[in-house]
């Protein structure tokens, strides 16, 4: 499933967040400028939301 390389905007600092490596819904992307975690909510169209905070029982 190849995606067209594009960029979307960080919800925190408005920097361009590059859309690379075949993003998937649910994937966490770090903003290259402010380092906040963003979650891919939609691939087509590209849409990011702020990633949820880590919860106490997360992990393996």
């Amino acid at each position, binding site marked *: 499933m190849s995606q067209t390389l594009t960029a979307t905007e960080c919800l925190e600092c408005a920097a361009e967040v590059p859309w690379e490596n075949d993003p998937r*819904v649910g994937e966490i992307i770090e903003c290259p400028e402010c380092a906040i975690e963003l979650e891919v909510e939609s691939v087509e169209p590209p849409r990011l939301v702020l990633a949820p905070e880590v919860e106490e029982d997360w992990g393996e």
Partner: protein
Amino acid sequence: MSSATPRLGVLASRVRFEEKSILAALERRGVACEQIDPRALSVRAGSPRTGPRTVLNREVGHYRALYAASALESAGVKVLNSAAAAAVCGDKWQTTTALVAAGLPTPETVLALTPEAALEALEGFGYPAVIKPLVGSWGRLVTRVTGPEMAAAVLEHLAALPSPQSHVVYVQREVAKADRDIRALVVDGRVVGATYRRSDQWRTNVARGAVSERCPLDPELTRLAVAAARTVGAHIAGVDLLQDPDGRLTVLEVNDRVEFRGLQQCHGTDIDAADAMAALLIKEGQA
């Protein structure tokens, strides 16, 4: 790919390296797969469910993973790992009792039903010893107590926590070990690979910055890892082991939704952990 509803699913909210690799492996094998987000999942108890019939559980949250597995199973879906396996792996005491019942070596452990009883149990072990939350991950709140004063303070904090579960204390004798532990990845009864996790901290979780290095497989390591996974009923397991200075291995814990980024990266192309899981999911989906 068929346009019909995929028979296979991957349950995941947070798509990390691991989930992305598994989804890519399924695509490489030409298999249709539905990614199920548990944040949007609800299941009517006992009613047959439309959608994938075999689901790989990769949900990052323990409770959501446990109850998603249980709910899907009640609706006739086969879940890997099963809810029963997740319940054992997710609770350190349940894991310990399963390992002990199977005769597998594991550190000496006491469950104290009150913080006061835990203090007495610690006297029996001597110090240092380790206090762990029953449910938890990435080494959070695991505490190495070096003496009775420190133990009393830690237990006082536990007693003050609001959750009744926090007042039940899991206490373990510390195992003398090198600055590393071992993680073995077991898929479908076979060890895919193993790593040393080395750290200058006493907790050797990769999530805490531990470095993964290749660990050669030997018959005893392989035997213990496979037996530990089987004991808890896990098709897929990350088995953590310690090796004492005399070379004896003990099984510390078994992870049911194993993270394998460090293991995969240090083995390069010699292994493909995600593909092994994809193959298992396909096989179980056909069974």
